[in-house]
């Protein structure tokens, strides 16, 4: 594995599988009376959040603490970041504090890349969402959730539906799922599919009803109205009628098909409450899995003298994890 996790494209297939297998082992920790492992004792992890986030920050914080790391939370509100300190000065401060890893969420696409490669600090950088670009750990936890329910993702059909244009989750998922051998279809109105989507090597569709019966996973995206500075669809009602997942559409799914949502949900817009709370929805489980996956990433990046070599995985590990579904 590389030293930083900036994009889902940084991961080879064996890297990604190693993370999923490690997460599977770490998930059982949640059932133990003492939810603590010593692997990152004495390491310092900084959560650097330039953009509001509840679940991702809490998830990273829980993951780091369960591995015994020291966690420093640094958010834009109430710090010098809101006084106009530059990213560079912030990075130099973190370096002086001796941070081993920086988990960064930024409103600007590419900020984690700059932090990792500008030579300002020696820490590992983990992208926790940058602008409309990428959110690799979200893609990993989504893939982990699918893998636990469906087994090997080779040839599985995943439909990613809705506001793809503003979604870093969609981009990271498309990259990672392709690495893991799944077939991805992006579904949304033409205005909400990004320019250059042809280069993503995924299928696209404007017709949700045509895609649903074949899908093994339906991932609904949040309509990010806070990022919308133009009219991308006429009315909420029209959007939810054409691209919302409701009870009628859910009835068209195969029995094993999973319904996912990265959260936070706009209930009644992209997903109705009865679907979100239904048996096939794994939305709450995604949150639990998020902690395990982030623990796996932190452990594999920081647990040893250098990041794990995925090629060293014995073949039995894959067979074993696969057999535990």
């Amino acid at each position: 594995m590389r030293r930083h996790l900036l994009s889902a494209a940084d991961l080879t297939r064996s890297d990604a599988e190693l993370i999923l297998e490690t997460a599977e082992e770490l998930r059982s920790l949640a059932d133990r009376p003492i939810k603590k492992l010593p692997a990152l004792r004495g390491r310092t992890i900084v959560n650097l959040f330039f953009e509001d986030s509840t679940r991702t920050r809490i998830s990273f914080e829980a993951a780091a603490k369960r591995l015994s790391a020291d966690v420093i939370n640094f958010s834009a509100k109430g710090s010098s970041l809101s006084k106009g300190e530059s990213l560079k000065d912030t990075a130099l401060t973190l370096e002086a504090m001796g941070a081993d890893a920086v988990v960064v969420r930024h409103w600007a696409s590419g900020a984690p890349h700059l932090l990792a490669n500008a030579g300002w600090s020696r820490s590992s950088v983990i992208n926790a969402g940058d602008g409309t670009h990428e959110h690799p750990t979200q893609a990993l936890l989504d893939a982990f959730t699918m893998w636990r329910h469906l087994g090997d993702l080779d040839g599985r059909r995943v439909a990613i539906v809705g506001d793809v244009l503003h979604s870093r989750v969609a981009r990271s998922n498309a990259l990672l799922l392709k690495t893991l051998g799944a077939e991805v279809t992006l579904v949304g109105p033409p205005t909400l599919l990004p320019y250059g989507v042809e280069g993503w090597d995924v299928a696209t569709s404007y017709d949700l009803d045509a895609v649903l019966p074949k899908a093994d996973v339906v991932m609904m995206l949040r309509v990010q109205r806070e990022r919308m500075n133009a009219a991308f669809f006429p009315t909420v009602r029209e959007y939810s009628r054409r691209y919302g997942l409701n009870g009628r559409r859910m009835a068209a799914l195969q029995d094993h098909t999973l319904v996912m949502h990265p959260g936070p949900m706009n209930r009644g817009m992209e997903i109705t409450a009865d679907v979100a709370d239904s048996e096939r929805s794994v939305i709450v489980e995604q949150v639990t899995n998020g902690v395990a996956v982030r623990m796996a990433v932190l452990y594999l990046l920081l647990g040893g003298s250098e990041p794990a070599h995925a090629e060293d995985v014995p073949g039995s590990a894959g067979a074993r994890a696969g057999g535990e579904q």
Partner: protein
Amino acid sequence: MPARPDAAAVSAPPGRTVLDPPDITRALTRIAHEILERNKGAADLVLLGIPTRGVPLATRIAAKIAAVEGAEVPVGSLDVTMYRDDLRMRPARTLLHTDIPPGGIDDKVVVLVDDVLFSGRTIRAALDAMNDVGRPSVVQLAVLVDRGHRQLPIRADFVGKNLPTSLVESVRVRLAEFDDVDAVTIADGPTDGTTDGTTEGER
């Protein structure tokens, strides 16, 4: 009891064979009896194997206890990777499987099972790992081979074979569950890492 492949049908592993399949079976049978004798039966017993090869050994011992005593002894596996004292000295290592039996280990008699006892550092790590899982009333240690050279004040309660070795020699344990053959061999020189099923016991 797992089926044993015919030893003659499989090519002999490199090095001098110290235990052949019948020897290993006899050693495990004896260990099973000793565990029952020491603990006056199988009540409250839990066997925890240390991956990878400690786990099938624990399973085999449990099968022998069941045959003798008619009691089902819970078997689990305990990964010690994160508790190793050399964790920071090498690239991050793959975690192995931890599986604590549903009854837990609180107030139980836990028998740790490993293939080779060498420096004692793996067992120290296992004791630390267990500390985060529960509080057994007693912890005992069973190993297939004790090759000496302890670096910590740790000893085994049940030993399949005491094997005097020099530090330049390497001991390999192969088990049918992973390596198609049961054998303990000893060879000159460090493990080359190319032989399948190689275990250098405790590092």
